[in-house]
């Protein structure tokens, strides 16, 4: 047997073996979807799709899930997770919106404006920003930014204005969005830069010859040509922001609360929240309780589903934009 394996392999067997190994990843993906769905099923059985809404009080519901033992009563499965979904949505939307603007501008800076020397510094530095582990961002957030915001930026008057609903400590939407933006911008910069650099120079020269100033030419021609890459970058960054768990758990304040714009725009950014992913980290120790486990797996299923929807959506958006095909 060993002797047979040691001899040079015939091609068809090598092909089949390699193909089988490759398919393993596919098997893993299918298993992931199946397992997460099965574990999340009780929530769907008891709530239907109603758990996506905010009809109940999620804090007491989760507390009840934790309290029930191995055989939870059906009432323990009631869930209305809207505050978490809302928290996930606003952190992601703000971070991607800010990040996209910053990323496009800094890609223009890197590719078009910076001198080669500056570019050689900027690219590795921004790449480093992308590879800093999220727990380090969280650590800096919780030990530096949160106390700073809590002690210096939030005024006593702002604290008293909402003291009946929520306590403002500094940890909250604002800090979360700032750090999340810093985390996802480098990803977008990388993809956008590469696309910008691959646009033929002559296209922009043509625009300049027609009388546009160089910056306008970049905005009107180059940026237009790389729209598919920008969409791809935004999709990737959104996926990353949706799934960020540990950093958000550390700096978001960890309260079942929906930041409310009617409290005033600055207070809004100081209010704490919780996201789908961060509550998985918050409650993972109670995962032995079947009801809570089902809830956490349903959060995971929602995240998995959004990641799918994002990549399909990004693909569909990119289709009509591919008129000026450059690389990527």
């Amino acid at each position, binding site marked *: 047997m060993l002797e047979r394996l040691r001899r*040079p*392999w015939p091609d068809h067997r*090598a092909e089949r073996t390699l193909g089988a*190994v*490759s398919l*393993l990843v*596919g098997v*893993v993906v299918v298993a*992931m979807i199946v*397992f*997460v769905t099965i574990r999340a099923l009780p929530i769907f059985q008891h709530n239907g799709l109603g758990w996506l809404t905010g009809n109940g009080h999620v804090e007491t519901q989760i507390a009840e899930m934790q309290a029930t033992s191995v055989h939870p009563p059906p009432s323990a499965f009631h869930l209305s997770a809207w505050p978490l979904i809302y928290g996930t949505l606003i952190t992601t939307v703000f971070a991607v919106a800010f990040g996209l*603007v*910053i990323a496009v*501008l*800094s890609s223009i800076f*890197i590719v078009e*404006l*910076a001198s*080669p020397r500056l570019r050689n510094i900027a690219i590795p*530095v*921004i*790449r480093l*920003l992308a590879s800093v*582990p*999220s*727990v*380090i961002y*969280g650590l*800096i957030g*919780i*030990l530096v930014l949160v106390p700073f915001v809590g002690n210096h930026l939030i005024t006593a008057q702002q604290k008293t204005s909402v003291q009946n609903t929520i306590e403002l400590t500094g940890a909250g939407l604002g800090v979360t969005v700032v750090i999340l933006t810093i985390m996802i*911008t480098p990803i977008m910069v990388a*993809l956008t830069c*590469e696309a910008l*650099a691959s646009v033929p*120079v002559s296209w*922009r*020269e043509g625009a*300049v010859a027609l009388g546009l*100033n*160089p*910056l*306008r030419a970049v*905005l009107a021609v180059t940026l237009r040509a790389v729209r598919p890459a920008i969409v791809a970058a935004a999709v990737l960054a959104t*996926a990353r922001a*949706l*799934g*960020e*768990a*540990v950093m958000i758990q*550390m700096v978001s304040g960890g309260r079942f609360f929906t930041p409310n714009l009617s409290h005033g725009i600055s207070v809004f950014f100081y209010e704490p929240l919780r996201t789908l*992913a961060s509550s*998985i*980290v918050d409650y993972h120790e109670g995962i032995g309780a079947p009801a809570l486990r089902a809830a*956490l797996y349903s959060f*995971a299923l929602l995240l*998995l589903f959004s*990641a799918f929807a994002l*990549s399909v959506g990004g693909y569909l958006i990119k289709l009509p934009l591919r008129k000026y095909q450059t690389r*990527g």
Partner: protein
Amino acid sequence: MNAIAPNAPHAPRPAGKSGGVQRPGGRGRRSSPWSWRWSDRLVLACAWISGIGLCLIAGAIVVYMGYRGIQYLRPNLLFSRPSVSTDQGSSGGFLDPLLGTLLLTFIGIALALPLAVCSAVWIAEYGRPSWLARVVESSIEIVAGTPDIVIALFGLSIFQLGVFAPLSFTSEGGGVYGRSFVAAGAMMSLLAVPPIFAASREGLQSLPGHLREAAFALGKTRIATIRRVLLPAVRSNVATGVTLGVSRIIGSTAIVLLLLGETLRFDTEGGVPGVNLLRGTGSALTSYIYDNSPAGEGAAPQKAYAAAFVLLVFVLVLNLVVDRIGRSHANAMGATVAGGIV
């Protein structure tokens, strides 16, 4: 490559050697940014500010963590084992988490490397039937886009199955604990597969066709060509991918928190040396930082800073390695920049 119209003599050039802002009234007819509309000048200023700002933020993080690291990192922290104590002076260092990170990295890469390289070879060199190749490619894309917290929960659900009971603790009632170094390492490998796959495939696809043709002309089979010619040629791409995979593994916190059991020290299971370590629980640098930050229960920020400094040094070194490989190998550049950050 200075992108803006370097050859057109009358073209305005804001991007000269001195950078974007040019002195008005230089040689020839050049439009300086000062003569542009205010909105254009605003965009130009914003581009400069955001580009420089990002670099400054990165610099600030490194400098701040370096400062804290030098302030708090002592050699005995690195070489002493952690212990449970209410007094921070006697709760030890982070030798076990450090070794835990290394062990997880080793397991993760050992599983991910063959898987990813085989997939890349199959996709790039065989890839038939094409729908199956498409399935494999999209699966890897899905894995790449899945948040690590979801991967962690998935891992928990499989390793708690009875079949995998030998891989972790089993409690009195027959419940499988599902948390061990094998479990965490296996899920970590899913993080490392996408970058290794992307880098290897890119490398294989950028190899010139005559390499293969020459090997075939010498009578080599496809698989022999792959083994003797193609794989050695893409070694540096694979190395780039592995480095990126390692940096994803050492930075992942969620998987460690959920799948490693969060015991401060190595907690072995069973009697066989080596195997008991793999079946046992432990901690990694990321979970050590988390637990010692105000978010965890430890509340020892000095130790969190010290461990974070060590972790950041690892990341910096890995970045330098990627950079070095990328520079020494022009072909790998694409993989470095594109696959690099993702």
